[in-house]
């Protein structure tokens, strides 16, 4: 039990289904406080599902997830979620500052104005991610890396200490990838916990410290080099537990005229 104190997220036998499809199958994994964890695995392995389960959006078929020392619903404000970039309409008439302000909305009552303390947090988040000179820009007028930083700043303004990122490196060039890694390492140094769904194994190996390898069930978890070892990847990507069910049965799905 003493070990539990250092694990800010504790999943026990987590099982989730979408209709008849099992997305997560008996996953038990601990995420240490202040770690930088990559959740990796093939498509349909349940990476996003695990993030959603941690956020408390899914009704679990079985098992439980404990965050800090209470249930997910009770600590929702402490969790920050970063959407995938493609889900955002970049033409939306909104400025960088207004997006970051959204981080404070949940703590406000209906129709209430932002308080001075809210403005302070927003300002600090903008400063930490070097967005102050860009604060008045419409979000289309930013580079990919800057756009990602805006959403990181919103998560910061939320005052969260656990950050759940869904494929944060998608669509970023090399420079922006380096920059984002740098920011995440900085957060780790400040004791913040970051959990990211990453489909790029190389990226996960290079930039993350802990790894969780999923193939609907848990294949491996631990220090990234061990968890994402070749042997484990072999199991996850070619194993018979792949989300599409069974061995290579694709041969039958198409017939070509001779």
């Amino acid at each position: 039990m003493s070990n539990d104190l250092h694990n800010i997220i504790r999943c026990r036998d987590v099982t989730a289904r979408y209709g008849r499809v099992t997305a997560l199958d008996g996953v038990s994994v601990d995420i240490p406080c202040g770690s930088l964890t990559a959740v990796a695995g093939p498509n349909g392995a349940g990476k996003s599902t695990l993030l959603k389960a941690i956020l408390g959006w899914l009704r679990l078929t079985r098992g439980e997830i404990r965050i800090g020392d209470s249930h997910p619903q009770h600590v929702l404000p402490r969790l920050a979620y970063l959407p995938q970039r493609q889900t955002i309409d970049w033409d939306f008439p909104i400025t960088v500052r207004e997006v970051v302000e959204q981080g404070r909305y949940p703590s406000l009552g209906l129709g209430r104005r932002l308080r001075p303390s809210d403005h302070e947090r927003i300002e600090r988040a903008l400063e930490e991610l070097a967005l102050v000179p860009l604060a008045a820009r419409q979000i289309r007028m930013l580079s990919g890396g800057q756009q990602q930083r805006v959403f990181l700043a919103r998560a910061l303004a939320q005052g969260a200490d656990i950050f759940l990122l869904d494929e944060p490196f998608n669509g970023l060039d090399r420079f922006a990838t380096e920059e984002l890694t740098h920011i995440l390492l900085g957060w780790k140094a400040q004791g913040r916990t970051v959990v990211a769904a990453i489909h790029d194994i190389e990226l996960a190996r290079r930039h993350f410290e802990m790894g969780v390898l999923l193939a609907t069930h848990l294949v491996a978890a631990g220090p990234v080099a061990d968890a994402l070892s070749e042997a484990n990847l072999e199991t996850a990507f070619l194993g018979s537990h792949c989300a599409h069910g069974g061995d290579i049965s694709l041969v039958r799905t198409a017939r070509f005229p001779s």
Partner: protein
Amino acid sequence: MSVSEFLIAPFRYDFMQRGLLTAVLLGISGGLLGCVLVLRRLSLMGDALAHSLLPGIAAAYLLFGPSLPALFTGALFAGLLTALGSALLSRLTRVKEDAAFGALFVVLFGAGVALINLARTRLNILEFLFGNVLAVSSSDIALTAATTAVTVLVFVVGYRHIVLETFDPVFYRATGGRGGLVHLGLLTLVVLNLVASLQTMGIVLSLGLFLLPAVSAYLWSDHLRSLLAISSGIAVLCAVAGILISYHAGFPSGASIVLCLGFVFFFSAVASPRHGLLSKLRGGGDKI
């Protein structure tokens, strides 16, 4: 005809004053709501919703005569039937929501036309379809005023919820928001405003008063608050101009208001300094 004769003289008449008041009120709430529809990519759905009101109104007319509460209830019922029906169809069957909406509204509109023919009364179908601002009654004004008040109130109180649900529904949900509730609330507001604008705009054109100012403003503004203000401003101005044209030229009021709005829209699409056609041709646009 002098300018004052053209602009002021028509409003000596009571019916023109009533028309003006409803048009201004409708412009305010229509301009606000249109922005949300455009940003949520529901423009076409709104149009479908407008058409689907016809059978509700026709049935209410057949059953209760020209009583405003009855017409309103009928329209509200038909609108909610379309909105909820298509949501349900898309959840429970393979049909996607846009297709479900398309299918439902066509059927309902057809039913509406059939019902009106069934009535064979003095019911003027042209008035239903294209509006007649000159026949605005005082109870119409009361309805419109109430609708505008409710719409503005919802926007003031729920502004952040609407913005967040529209901009990033996943985040809104993650922070404890009820996305479905916001969506349903907005749809109800749309139906409410469509019904209120029926007399002035007519069924076929009523959505023009929502959408055209919003898309025009969308071409000018990069800030949501100014977008809402510009959109409402355009709607009010064009509504007044449209009524004047309708009075002088004898067009249906819905048509002349939509034509004014259309002029503003095409002008914006060409001349907007940052997002218009000319700026793109000059190579000065923001997007590649």
